């Protein structure tokens, strides 16, 4: 049973590493083929940004491996996480509606990649805050 869990963990780590490596390889290919060479989120190309994200991912995964903190995830946490997910989804729907109305009033000129980055960060923040608040109630 224990070896099965360890195997599962090892597979998960391998998947995380391969995802990060994939981003680095994709970034290199983009840079070599001169794809997306416009300024992108503070980087000179999409490839450079992908390489940066890939390296960042590898550093975080390795750091987490060294810390090796045992985390207990029980049913209450899963229950709260589901509730937080529902709240985040509701937030997304409401936010989407507001954006539709705002875009109708005045066109949104923010670049699409920046808009999506802000949206993803916002969603993660809403999820995190609602999870932390709900944990106190259940």
């Amino acid at each position, binding site marked *: 049973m224990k070896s099965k869990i360890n195997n599962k963990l090892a597979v998960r780590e391998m998947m995380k590493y391969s995802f990060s490596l994939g981003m680095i390889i994709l970034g290199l290919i983009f840079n070599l083929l001169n794809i997306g060479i416009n300024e992108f989120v503070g980087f000179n190309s999409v490839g450079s940004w992908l390489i940066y994200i890939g390296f960042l991912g590898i550093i975080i995964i390795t750091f987490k491996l060294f810390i090796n903190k045992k985390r207990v995830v*029980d*049913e*209450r946490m899963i229950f709260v996480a589901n509730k937080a997910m529902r709240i985040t989804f509701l937030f997304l729907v409401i936010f989407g509606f507001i954006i539709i109305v705002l875009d109708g009033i005045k066109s949104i000129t923010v670049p699409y990649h920046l808009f999506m980055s802000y949206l993803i960060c916002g969603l993660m923040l809403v999820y995190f805050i609602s999870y932390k608040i709900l*944990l106190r109630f259940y």
Partner: protein
Amino acid sequence: MKTKIAFYRNKLNITQEELASLVGVTRQTIISLEQGKYNPSLELANKITKVLKRKNIEQVFIL
């Protein structure tokens, strides 16, 4: 849901931390259960009943 977890836990001289590790949850979950804030699954309720050496779930969890 009202519970008698704290009562039987004190009877057996088990701390919240010990009970939590025995049933595989966090201490915060045990606190929530004792305060009646969280309704456990049947599996968790069964585990707690066994650890507290009770025969029926109804002895520990009161509907």
